[in-house]
């Protein structure tokens, strides 16, 4: 028995899991309908795929949500996991699920997948026969991913950086890397049985003033860590940033560099897709306005040339959206994509050049770290602030980079901290902003910039 398999058996012998039947699961994946694989749809698609977000505590609620989504002509179904399961607190998840079932009141902000288990969940997934995407935010997702794939969920979001720095306060970083290595290998192995399992990185990060250079570097690194382990279908992603032009530039640079770096490690056989998230930051409380924002995001996604869009709802500012509101966004987004014709091609060479230089400089600094493996290089780079994510709650994050919006609402780096932004780029970024203000007004500007869409 391989080391990996030994580890798998340990993880899956757990008081919260019913006996896990490895052989049966492998057989299920081998024979599973191609329709369940988003990698298959990416290859065949002739339009941007539309995927909402959504997870409810009970099986019945989740099932009803999927019915609504299918009526709204969804392309990819979501399975969003609750925050207790995300932090491996299965005991609380179990308790809150029971409370939710008994009290007719939701005590969980997502679907507790481990608690429901794969046998139950698979019924639902195969019934709808649409690709499902697992959205979680879990640093240690080993048990969760095994349960997901066994359920028929063949797209796994996240990664050791993107699901850690925005989602955790003190989960040890090195552990996260090792746990995700496990996830990548499990995905790579299952990919040999049928269509590839797709892995997707979570580009939005904290969704709060993250500059594109940081987003792209993290996307590229998670892609490389995944391809290294044998994953054959990977999506890089980012979310609406507040400036249409900056989004278009970001999309162009990320596509170009993803292919470049995949090639560098000899993985050009892997399929790389681009995913765009509708605005992930603070939403307007006015639900009509929220819809304008959502629609604008769809327009930008088209201009960016995304392969998939992940949607929000008019209720984002309020709380977990109802299934009606969620399905409405899907139908509206599909309509918008249908009428979005004659999109112009936009190229901003100067901004692309600056951004490319920044990303390459940071990547080089990471590669130059003396550690022996990529994951250790990345680990060190986060520890010493070569990678620094604004508004990360994690204690290991440096928090020294300061960003602000310029007059055209581009996110600009005004303090680079330890991030090796090349001199020329740094000067360019700062030259776009008014830095003559005092600290209090800059803090006020930052608060304003966070609420820019409100």
């Amino acid at each position, binding site marked *: 028995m391989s080391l990996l398999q030994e580890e798998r058996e340990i993880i899956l012998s757990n008081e919260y899991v019913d006996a896990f039947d490895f052989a049966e699961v492998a057989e299920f994946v081998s024979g599973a309908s191609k329709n369940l694989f988003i990698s298959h749809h990416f290859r065949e698609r002739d339009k941007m795929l539309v995927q909402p977000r959504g997870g409810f505590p009970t099986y019945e609620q989740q099932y009803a949500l999927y019915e609504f989504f299918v009526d709204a002509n969804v392309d990819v179904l979501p399975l969003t996991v609750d*925050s207790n399961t995300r932090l491996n607190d299965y005991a609380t998840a179990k308790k809150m699920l029971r409370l939710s079932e008994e009290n007719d009141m939701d*005590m969980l902000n997502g679907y507790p997948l481990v608690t429901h288990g794969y046998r139950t969940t698979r019924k639902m997934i195969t019934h709808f026969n649409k690709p499902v995407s697992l959205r979680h935010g879990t640093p240690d997702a080993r048990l969760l991913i095994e349960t997901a794939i066994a359920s028929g969920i063949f797209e796994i979001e996240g990664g050791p950086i993107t699901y850690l720095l925005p989602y955790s*306060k003190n989960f040890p970083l090195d552990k996260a890397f090792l746990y995700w290595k496990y996830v990548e290998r499990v995905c790579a192995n299952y990919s040999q049985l049928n269509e590839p399992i797709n892995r997707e990185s979570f580009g939005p990060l*904290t969704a709060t003033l993250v500059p594109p250079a940081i987003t792209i570097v993290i996307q590229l690194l998670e892609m490389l860590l995944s391809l290294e382990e044998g994953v054959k279908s990977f999506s890089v992603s980012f979310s609406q940033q507040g400036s249409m032009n900056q989004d278009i530039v970001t999309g162009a640079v990320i596509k170009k560099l993803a292919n470049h770096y995949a090639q560098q490690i000899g993985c050009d056989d892997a399929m790389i897709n681009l995913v765009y998230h509708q605005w992930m930051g*603070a939403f307007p409380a006015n639900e009509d306005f929220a819809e304008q924002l959502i629609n604008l995001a769809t327009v930008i996604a088209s201009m960016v040339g995304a392969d998939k869009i992940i949607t929000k709802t008019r209720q984002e500012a*309020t*709380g*977990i959206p109802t299934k009606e509101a969620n399905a409405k966004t899907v139908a509206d987004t599909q309509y918008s994509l249908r009428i979005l014709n004659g999109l112009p091609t936009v190229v901003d060479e100067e901004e692309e050049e600056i951004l490319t230089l920044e990303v390459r400089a940071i990547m080089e600094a990471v590669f130059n770290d003396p550690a022996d493996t990529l994951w250790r290089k990345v680990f060190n780079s986060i520890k010493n602030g070569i990678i620094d994510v604004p*508004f990360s*709650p994690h204690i290991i994050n440096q928090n020294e980079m300061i960003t602000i919006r310029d007059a055209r609402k581009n996110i600009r780096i005004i303090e680079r901290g330890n991030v090796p932004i090349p001199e020329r780029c740094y000067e360019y970024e700062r030259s776009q902003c008014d830095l003559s203000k005092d600290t209090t007004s800059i803090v006020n500007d930052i608060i304003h910039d966070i609420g820019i869409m409100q």
Partner: protein
Amino acid sequence: MKVVTGVVGNDIHVVANRLIDLSLRARGYEVFNLGVNTHLEEFFDAVVETGAEVLMISSLNGEAEGWGREVPLLKSRYSNLDDVIMMIGGNLVVGSGNTEDIVARYKKYGFDLVCHQMDLNTGLDMLQSLSEERGIA
């Protein structure tokens, strides 16, 4: 005046927490910020350790309801917490709910000030009034 603050439970929404920290300091409070992902016991322990007059809990991701129910029991295990102003704000339920009902429920859990989806400055003004009322400002 000393304030212990942080985000309760498995909740990692940090943006409000950073702004609360800044705003409290700007208003002259001495702040002990436990950050996100803080469990109830940690809050109570910190209040005891620091001798804070105010405990200001945030909850954004909808978990508060679950934790709120534990407050009365847990609080009863500590002595000398009766004079502490207990305050909670953010998104206090999963999904959307009626504010009046929510406020009533959280008052029963032992909170003096319940700021469901309320603007931060309004909440801080309420805190000021209450502490003046209680003569601790």
